[in-house]
């Protein structure tokens, strides 16, 4: 039995010690915890950890296997994402106890704070006392046992699992209902209470998902195209697309859902140009070797940086929206081009880990496919706040895409309409986010870069928060970014354009004198010219999603949400997926990435620079008044002939 005194040892050092005690199979007493955060975070050995006093936020978070006992109280996020093992707390727990647990026993002898068991997937969360507001909020599975009273809106938007309440139920949440409790099931819960020595003699009430929400009674019809009158030579106002839109809405009575991003004309990188006449770009097949494109991401706080052969990464896209074959092709292409891949929501599949040289795993609010093991396999960890295509919104993976494999990875029942929450359970503000970042650093031994993905909304404020909250770098996604499914109105009109986003980000960072936090720009980046312009404006690099998908066979039919993608990309149906040839498409994507590299190198070399980071704003002009206003570059439409067409032709 070892002892760690937190009056003398920092929590970071204590967690390192715990890992070595874990290796040795030795149990540990922690004394003088004094409600410090992150005690026991990242512990993956089945040892017993006794905390003599109160613990702070995320006690036993991101763990698998330990038995943790706490004499006093715990703060927010008790046992966050715990797999196997147990936690027993003698006092009270703060908000979101048992958040996203995937199999553990989490027992609190006192009361639970708000939103207990949010997005939990398996295991048992139990309190002897009362639970506060919105217990079981958005839970996907497992059981939540409240021996005392439950507060308002218990079971709010739960999709699976069961809630048992021994006392009074103040109110049921939307889409939750009471159901008869079979005797055998009650016995099972009582046996659990016995095992953890919780006295209970009342009658349990059972609460489950009512299944009333999340059902779309009418699917979107395929519209027969009827020739439409043309009122004048200009057809922006009434035209066949508008007609189709109205006709479909007349059938379904709601917004339309489609894939891809904003399609309407917006100021973009096309609207700025290099001053230098790029027609002088030589047809030099060896230009790539003449300039330095290498870079890295991360390391602001001593983590091991993600090395990149050029300032380009594959944008994060989920296994779920995309087929496994597509994910593997992207991973292979990223390795062939020696850049990094990203997971998006839904976890890291072994095939992607094996194929990619470097992969950044993303943590979203639903914590689907997210756990300490995935974090440790990753080269970087990213907290997703929002995306450019639909900033502020969550998502929904339709039931037919939730296959057994995806369900297993995400820890949820197969075949459910899977809601992804729009926000994190434990990040309700910049102050909470600080603590979340620290938890991730603790779980990864401060070795992995931790980034944030921001959809462009109020960029000026958000990027300052990202800097202060201690992220290594930012993935900034503009309005032109794409998604597998969102409403047309959101895609077109919610968010701000990529060009405005990067300017606001850079201005905001300059305002507070922030340095050393690179911005990776995404949202409508289609080639090396866009990449070069973004970097010249001040981005550290770019990420490509849609263009990589197109390179890999996407035909841009926008029907990603339907689930029957004819080229096997946005589908989980084996019949369609088998049309996708991983080897062929990975090489297509790789060749596209190499064209991007060649364009980038050519532009750098033509400017007479040795490194891509010698590109600057001084090399750019604006071609439209709007772009000049957004970028503060000189308005010089006469440069329009210079760049795009000719470099494109040269490449």
């Amino acid at each position: 039995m070892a002892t760690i005194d937190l009056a003398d040892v920092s929590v970071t050092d204590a967690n390192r010690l715990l890992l070595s005690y874990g290796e040795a199979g030795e149990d540990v007493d922690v004394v003088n915890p004094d409600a410090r955060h992150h005690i026991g975070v990242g512990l993956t050995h089945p040892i017993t950890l006794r905390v003599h006093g109160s613990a702070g936020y995320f006690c036993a978070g991101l763990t698998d296997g330990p038995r943790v006992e706490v004499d006093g109280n715990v703060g927010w996020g008790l046992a966050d994402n715990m797999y196997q093992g147990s936690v027993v707390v003698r006092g009270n727990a703060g908000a979101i106890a048992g958040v996203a647990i995937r199999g553990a026993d989490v027992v609190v002898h006192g009361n639970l704070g708000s939103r207990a068991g949010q997005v939990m997937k398996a295991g048992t969360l139990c309190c002897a006392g009362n639970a506060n507001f919105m217990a079981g909020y958005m839970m996907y599975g497992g059981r939540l046992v409240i021996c005392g009273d439950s507060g308002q809106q218990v079971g709010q938007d739960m999709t699976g699992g069961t809630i048992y309440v021994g006392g009074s139920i103040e109110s049921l949440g939307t889409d939750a209902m009471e159901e008869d409790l079979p005797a055998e099931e009650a016995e099972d819960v009582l046996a659990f209470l016995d095992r953890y020595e919780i006295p209970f003699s009342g009658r349990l009430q059972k609460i489950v998902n009512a299944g009333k929400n999340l059902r779309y009674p009418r699917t979107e019809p395929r519209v027969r195209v009827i020739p439409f009158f043309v009122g004048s030579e200009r057809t922006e106002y009434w035209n066949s697309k508008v007609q189709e839109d109205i006709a479909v809405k007349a059938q379904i009575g709601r917004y339309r859902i489609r894939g891809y991003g904003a399609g309407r004309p917006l100021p973009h990188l096309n609207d700025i140009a290099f001053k230098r006449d790029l027609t002088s770009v030589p047809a030099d097949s060896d230009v790539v070797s003449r300039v330095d494109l290498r870079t890295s991401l991360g390391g602001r706080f001593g983590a091991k940086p993600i090395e990149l052969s050029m300032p380009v990464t594959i944008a994060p896209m989920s296994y779920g929206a995309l087929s496994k074959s597509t994910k593997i092709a992207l991973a292979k292409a990223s390795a062939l081009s020696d850049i990094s891949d990203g997971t998006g929501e839904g976890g890291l599949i072994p095939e992607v880990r094996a194929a990619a040289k470097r992969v950044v795993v993303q943590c979203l609010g639903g914590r689907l496919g997210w756990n300490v093991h995935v974090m440790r396999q990753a080269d970087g960890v990213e907290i997703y706040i929002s995306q450019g295509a639909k900033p502020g919104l969550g998502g929904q993976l339709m039931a037919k895409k939730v296959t057994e494999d995806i369900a297993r990875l995400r820890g949820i029942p197969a075949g459910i309409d899977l809601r992804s929450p729009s926000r994190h359970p434990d990040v309700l503000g910049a102050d909470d986010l600080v603590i979340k970042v620290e938890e991730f650093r603790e779980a990864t031994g401060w070795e992995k870069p931790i980034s944030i993905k921001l959809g462009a909304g109020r960029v000026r404020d958000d990027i300052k928060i990202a800097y202060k909250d201690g992220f290594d770098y930012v993935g900034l996604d503009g309005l032109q970014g794409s998604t597998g499914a969102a409403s047309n109105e959101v895609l077109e009109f919610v968010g701000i354009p990529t060009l405005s986003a990067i300017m606001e980000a850079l201005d905001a960072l300059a305002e507070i004198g922030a340095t050393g936090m690179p911005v990776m720009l995404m949202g409508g980046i289609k080639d090396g010219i866009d990449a070069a312009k973004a970097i010249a404006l001040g981005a550290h690099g770019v990420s490509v999603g849609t263009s990589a998908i197109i390179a890999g066979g996407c035909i841009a039919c926008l029907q990603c949400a339907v689930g029957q993608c004819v080229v096997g990309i946005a589908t989980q149906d084996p019949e369609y997926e088998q049309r996708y040839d991983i080897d062929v498409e990975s090489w297509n994507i790789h060749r596209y990435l190499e064209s991007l590299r060649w364009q980038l190198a050519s532009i750098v070399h033509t400017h007479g620079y040795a490194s891509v980071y010698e590109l600057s704003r001084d090399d750019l002009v604006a071609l439209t008044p709007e772009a000049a206003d957004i970028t503060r570059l000189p308005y010089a439409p006469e440069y329009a002939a210079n760049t795009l067409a000719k470099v494109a032709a040269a490449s």
Partner: protein
Amino acid sequence: MCGIAGVLYKENGHDRGIGQALITMLDGCQHRGPDSTGFALYHEARADDELRLRFLVAEGDEGNETIADIKARLAEFDAQVTEEERIGNTVRFTVKFDGDLQGLAYAMEHVAKVVSIGQSLDIVKDVGGAHDVDDTYHVAGFAGTHGIGHVRLATESDVTPDRSHPFWATGFADVAIVHNGQITNYWKMRRRLEKRGMEFHTDNDSELIAVYLADKLANGSTLEEALRSSIDDMDGTFSFLVSTKEEIGYAKDRLAAKPMVMYEDDDLVAIASEEVSLNKLFPGQALQTIEPPPGTFRTWRRSI
């Protein structure tokens, strides 16, 4: 987006180490807000006609001019200066005054940025951490009866001393608030209060809470009533603390989006964003703490 802390010693008669207690608590949650730190400190009022006023002033000659203007305006209101201290980026006056306080306060706001006015209250706030602010303003040595404090992580308005917390309820002596969260119907509420003649001096949403509560108190509400109605009237996320000459209180939004933990014994009540701040006051102990439920409020009064 911030951390808050408050402490009230119940027993009257002698002043306690309020400054040090708040420094300790705020240092414990500085991770929630590294940009600026502030304290609203209360001691026994020395005389009914004695007021303390603190203003933000610039350095050098510009500051000297402001101080001269302040003195001239105080003289117009027959406020007789008995003490003057220039410290950090502020100047503090003690004056003899028994006229219309709101009139004086609004008039002073047009001369310089007022940090606080009160018989018992003194607000100290600046950019930097709890210990930085203490180094400049010597908060640790402050003895008093109760106080509230704040660490700020600026999200929407700038990092400046005047946008730091606590906020004094402009025009109303001895009322201060600290807030964690975001008031989303800020502009609507602000316009409503401005129509009633209330003044705002920053674009920080938390200032609204101070002005709102002061307006209620001025119109005869008890602090409890003002807190109760604030939960109905304010939209958004909030856990806030309020202090008056005799009381401290809290209110928490219905969504319970912002943390708050409290500890009470025979000697004191202490409230903070996180238990780690409370535990800093009582190292080595597992405290019996309570997390207030959503949509609740409570006040504590000094035994007088």
